[in-house]
């Protein structure tokens, strides 16, 4: 059964500056010694937020003005590095449900969409407009309109992109593919039957 379709997401935003924000930065590996994803939200961007002695660094993610944010705004090649689903899981569990970036690393993007974390691409200039608007007024509501490729905030609106397949999955509520994959069991067996190395 499909999940609830995700046609748009709305919420306050927080700007996380930098290109090539890798998955080790999103969640350092030392916090992945776990057998469930529970509690990962606490470690999101841990080393970006905390000094080695555990004090808060000066960063938007620690700024009380952005404490209510549910949408991350960042740079190019967001989520590069590891295939760890711990990264989008920690984003989701820390209370964020969308990322606006200049581009996404492929595995991270796929992992995020599977969880219903909306990832859309906006140009450098448009992301600057968004982050300026958030900085000017942290209360400003961002709305990512997945269906119409549009991000609105205050009285402004800019275009955004998302891969067509991912967009369809979000709009239909089929972003977790498991149910559909299970339905193909007969076809899977037929394909496997033609491959010698698949035989038991």
């Amino acid at each position, binding site marked *: 059964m499909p999940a609830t379709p995700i046609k748009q997401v709305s919420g306050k935003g927080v700007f996380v500056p*930098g*290109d*090539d924000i*890798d998955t*080790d*930065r999103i969640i*350092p*590996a*030392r916090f*992945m*010694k*776990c*057998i*469930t994803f529970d509690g990962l939200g606490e470690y999101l961007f841990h*080393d970006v937020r*905390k000094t*080695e002695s555990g004090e808060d660094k000066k960063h938007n993610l620690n700024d009380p003005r952005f404490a209510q944010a549910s949408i991350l705004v960042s740079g*190019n*090649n967001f989520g*590069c*590095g*590891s*295939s*760890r*689903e*711990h990264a*989008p*899981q920690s984003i989701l569990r820390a209370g964020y449900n969308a990322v606006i970036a200049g*581009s996404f*690393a*492929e*595995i991270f993007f*796929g*992992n995020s969409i*599977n*969880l219903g974390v909306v990832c859309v691409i906006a140009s*450098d200039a448009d992301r600057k407009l968004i982050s300026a608007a958030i900085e000017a007024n942290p209360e400003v509501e961002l709305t990512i309109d997945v269906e119409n490729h549009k991000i609105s905030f205050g009285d402004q609106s800019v275009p955004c992109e998302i*891969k067509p*397949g*991912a967009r*369809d*999955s979000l709009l*239909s509520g*089929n972003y977790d*593919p*498991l149910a*559909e*994959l*299970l339905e*193909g*069991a007969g*076809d*899977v067996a037929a*394909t*496997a039957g033609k*491959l*010698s*190395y*698949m035989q*038991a």
Partner: protein
Amino acid sequence: MSKSLFEKVWDAHAVRQLANGQTQLLIGTHLIHEVTSPQAFGMLRDKDLTVQYPHRTFATVDHIVPTNEAVEPYSDPLAQGMIEELRKNCAENNVTFFDTNTGKQGVVHIVGPEQGITQPGTTIACGDSHTATHGAFGAIAFGIGTSQVRDVLATQTIALNKLKVRRINVTGNLLPGVYAKDVILHIIRLLGTQGGTGFAYEYAGDTFDNFTMEERMTVCNMSIEGGARVGYVNPDETTFEYLKGRPYSPTGEAWDAAVAEWKSFASDEGCAFDDVVNIDATEIQPTVTWGITPGQGVGIEENIPTIADAPTQSEKDSIAEALEYMQFEGGSPIKGKKIDVAFIGSCTNGRLSDFEEVAKYVKGHKVAEGVQAIIVPGSQVVAKIAEAKGLDKIFIEAGFEWRAAGCSMCLAMNPDKLVGDQLCASSSNRNFKGRQGSPTGRTMLMSPIMVAAAAVTGEVSDARQVFGFKS
């Protein structure tokens, strides 16, 4: 119509098209480890699903295994919990587990090939982004997330968009002292860390034809650092020679049939590619990263770039951020940076040939005072052969710590970690901020020989000069 290997393997494994336009792709071989599989088994239990093709999933334990502690329970109870969870999940689901007592345990991307599980013309998935390593055999190998590990366990398939294919031809002979690691660091430097997004990389040209399987694996391993989820080399006699006689390789008549089939998967002469890049092997220098992404590398004779060199503001910002983190000055030589730690190992460079090459040159040298040098075999099989050849004694004599098989200092999920802002010369694959376990730790990626040269001189050095390579 002529086709690339990628298209042939894709077509042979495409089950059907899904509603959103993605392909349901059969994953013939599934490799799992302790970090990204427990949650997937948990999801299966929650949904009351079972492993559909248990004979096509193989497990090992690598990320959390301490390399200096053989006896369980490990001193880290979280690590102990993870290995026990994997044991339980494999036993309950009839999955083969290369456990620490089998003599076959090791880094998943080293175990698959050396057991002969990794074969040409197959699809392989693993919850680890360095799965492209297996592409060295002409397999299409994907790094996947944990929900997809669940999908493979439950259905033996994943939902995926077809990739484009970029052929990267490298031609000519590598200069003495230049290795496969330098080839991939050079490619990433040229094409960027996101240049491969949406592509599978087909590595070709006579440089690759002449490479051993282990060299091909080193290059394919780091495809993802260039943004490419998949990287492969077409199978040839070198591939078949490597696979012959391995535990999971076919035997007898089945071997001949398999080789014929494997050959048929190679890219057809003259087939079309979405993009082609040509690289002259003689232009590749021993390459070292100075920054915080694998694309931030320079030749050993070059200087670190300055902020002013960068053409765009975002590149200027990236260089500034990297220089600040690495505590390097723009425009200064890469050579001569004082190191604290030297690490040789990982799924990139933890194979027998890496250790044989290092042993050949470090014999008679001593690790510099104040440098901690650790050398970590990628698998128990590698360790056993290296020890039988006496390589461990050469390393220990030179002042290296010879450890047990595991991921070790590549990623900081075990006791091998940098402390404070230590600078590490590393044969691993990622130099991200904090990658090696300390939030301020600094990593410089290079070939194992270059790590060895840094270890014995105490600073980033040109191995060709340190070890007297003849050019």
